[in-house]
């Protein structure tokens, strides 16, 4: 009966949206590095840690107001208690564990084992409690019990909490963790060296009245100071035997330092590429809007050069590391990932709807472009897909793959050949306007009914008269192009003017169009 009630409650919580939503929210806030509000939470906690340590240091020599101490002992600690509890909560899902146990038992035709479910829950939660970061969290809460004055020193554990919030510190730990075996060997070697040399120096020096090394603690202190090549000089061996030990330990000390340095350096060297990649992924996640270019072909190179003028970031995904290296040498943001793999987008955590303006498929083969297109279409139906088509016979396949805009260079050249053969000058004019190689360009100006009068008045302004050509106005609502428009037509909602002029003049026109005041 009790078991049934537990299972029902677990099912209820598992399907109760407000509960699940709040759990996801706190999980994101505490654990999800890509959650947009996490950084604010981290900054807040870092602020509390610094404040706490400042109050501790200030209280050593100064009498602080009672309010400060209360704030430090209770308020800050309370935040840490809440944080610890929330982390404990979101670490695992009890309801899910109970349901899994219930379904397993149901499948095997046996009664629900409440004890087994509780055991699994306990195991999961203890996994959290015994993790190094959770232990630090717990120790950082200890000053809450400020009656035990000694526990005040635990405030320093709050500094260790910084590892949780500062990514670079976490990275440092993970790099050093990759050299666990070497570090362990070094520690064992150093400990043996300290033990042997301190016992030896004690034996040589303890009975000599001129020597200051009188206890085993003095000997250990001397050994540590010497082996790490500090050598304060407050304790020095005076016997021949003691000096021989000193010489041995100084030489060993150099070995220890060299070994330690080499471990750290090799760990960083080995992880350097990984760190660089992580930083690149971080910078991708920080982008608000971008073009995603799949494949780094010569055409992609050219398209990117053109797109750079739009001042919108561009991310390149290319499988070939050599091409990625080439793109990076050009100062482009390129990652060596397969654009046709779902794993890539999960790993990069790209939010298509919020981050991507358009996807441009520029691989050198139609197969690769279709494959990448289909992968992206699985993730989003909204984002426009543009692709180059290499073989005309594949056009239908591209449409079926959900690619919105297809460009075939053979068709383009064919169409242009007719113009260039009959009207070569006109072709050059249009090519020059489109390639933006000169200061005169062709551009679009989005209009709305509020700028109607102003638009036509500005065209007669001496600054723009005869220097600013309006080819026509395209109405997005009727899909009609009104060539050489008459002012009497006015401006309708959704109108776009196609203009030719010097690029600075176009910018000035745009600015004046939306500036208040008389024309």
């Amino acid at each position, binding site marked *: 009966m009790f078991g049934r009630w537990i299972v029902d409650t677990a099912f209820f919580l598992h399907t109760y949206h407000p509960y699940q939503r709040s759990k996801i929210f706190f999980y994101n806030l505490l654990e999800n590095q890509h959650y947009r509000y996490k950084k604010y939470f981290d900054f807040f906690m870092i602020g509390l840690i610094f404040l706490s340590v400042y109050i501790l240091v200030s209280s050593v020599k100064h009498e602080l107001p009672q309010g400060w101490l209360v704030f430090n002992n209770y308020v800050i600690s309370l935040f840490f208690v809440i944080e610890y509890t929330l982390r404990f909560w979101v670490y695992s899902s009890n309801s899910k564990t109970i349901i899994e146990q219930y379904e397993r038992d149901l499948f095997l035709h046996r009664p629900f084992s409440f004890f087994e479910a509780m055991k699994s829950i306990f195991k999961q939660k203890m996994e959290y409690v015994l993790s190094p970061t959770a232990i630090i969290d717990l120790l950082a809460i200890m000053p809450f019990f400020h009656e035990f004055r000694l526990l005040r020193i635990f405030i320093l554990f709050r500094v260790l909490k910084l590892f949780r919030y500062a990514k670079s510190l976490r990275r440092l730990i993970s790099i050093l963790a990759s050299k666990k075996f070497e570090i362990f060997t070094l520690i064992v070697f150093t400990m043996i060296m300290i033990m042997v040399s301190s016992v030896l120096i004690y034996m040589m020096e303890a009975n000599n009245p001129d020597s200051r090394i009188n206890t085993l603690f003095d000997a250990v202190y001397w050994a540590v100071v010497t082996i790490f090549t500090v050598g304060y000089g407050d304790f020095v061996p005076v016997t021949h035997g003691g000096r021989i030990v000193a010489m041995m330990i100084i030489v060993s000390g150099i070995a220890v330092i060299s070994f330690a340095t080499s471990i750290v350096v090799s760990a960083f060297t080995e992880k350097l590429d990984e760190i660089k990649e992580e930083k690149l992924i971080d910078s991708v996640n920080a982008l608000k809007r971008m*073009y995603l270019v799949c494949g780094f072909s*010569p*055409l992609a190179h*050219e*398209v990117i*050069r*053109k*797109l750079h003028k739009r001042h919108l970031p561009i991310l390149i995904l290319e499988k070939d590391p050599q091409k990625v290296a080439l793109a990076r040498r050009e100062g482009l943001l390129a990652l060596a990932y397969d654009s046709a793999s779902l794993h890539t987008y999960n790993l990069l955590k790209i939010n298509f709807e919020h981050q991507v303006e*358009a996807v*441009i498929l520029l691989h050198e083969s139609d197969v690769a472009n279709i494959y990448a297109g289909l992968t992206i279409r699985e993730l989003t139906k909204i984002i426009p897909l*543009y692709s*180059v088509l290499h*073989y*005309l016979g594949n056009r239908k396949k591209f449409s079926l793959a959900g690619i919105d*805009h297809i*460009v075939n*260079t*053979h*068709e*383009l*050249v*064919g*169409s*242009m*050949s*007719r*113009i*260039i*053969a*009959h*009207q*070569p*000058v*006109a*072709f*050059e*004019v*249009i*090519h020059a*306007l*489109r*390639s933006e190689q*000169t200061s*005169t360009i*062709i*551009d*679009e100006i989005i209009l709305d009914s509020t700028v109607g009068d102003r638009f036509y008045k500005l065209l007669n302004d001496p600054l723009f008269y*005869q*220097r*600013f*050509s309006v*080819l026509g106005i*395209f109405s*997005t609502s009727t899909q009609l*192009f009104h*060539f*050489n428009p008459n002012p009497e037509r006015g401006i309708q909602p959704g109108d776009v003017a*196609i203009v*030719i*002029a010097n690029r600075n003049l176009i910018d000035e026109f745009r600015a004046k169009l939306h500036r208040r005041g008389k024309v």
Partner: protein
Amino acid sequence: MKHHCAAIFGYNEYSKQILKQLKGSYRNIGVFVISDAEFLEAQEDGYSVEKFDLSDNWEEIEVRFDVDSLIVFCALTDDAENVFLTISLRATFEKLFIIALAQDNESMMKMKSAGADKVMPILQIAANVIADILGKPIMTQVLHDVLYEDSDLTIMEMEIGANSPINGQYLHDIHFKRDFDLILLAIVDQEQGTTFSFASKGQNHHIDEGDILVLMGYKDKLQRLKKWNAGVDACK
């Protein structure tokens, strides 16, 4: 010079598309290829095809076409061979109108140096179109309709004749927009060479015989201007 015949060098995806576009416009079209495979393919597709090598023997061209009214497309897939072909043709036929394909801007410069009159840089053309579709989709659509579709709105280049009423006038004295419902895009000044300048820049330009105007407008209005330019009292 009006061209009546066309010779296309190479038979690949680009030349196939060029042939598709030129088919109805020229009374004599010849395809010239290097390999046997290209020869057979072009022949199967029903084109009049000849083989050639990159030596200087262009007798076939002289026999088959009136060189003065011939337009040549150098559309070999290899840029180096295309440059060589262009320079060989130019060395033999000084006045031949040569259009060459180039993979990129670098090859385009070489084609121009080799003597091509016009060069189509494939990568740049495709990149311009892709970037324009992304950034200026409406402008791209409008230009596409004007240039490649059979729409009333079109683009025309017009040479100023000796009897043209425009001859001898200043650009700012002629109101193409107001009087003809046309928009002047650019002008080529014969005195300054073959490069053009945009109309928005050179309003003080003095129009002389031989200058070329590039205009956009509806076909009927462009035709009226053309007649008027030819000295026929047709409009205004």
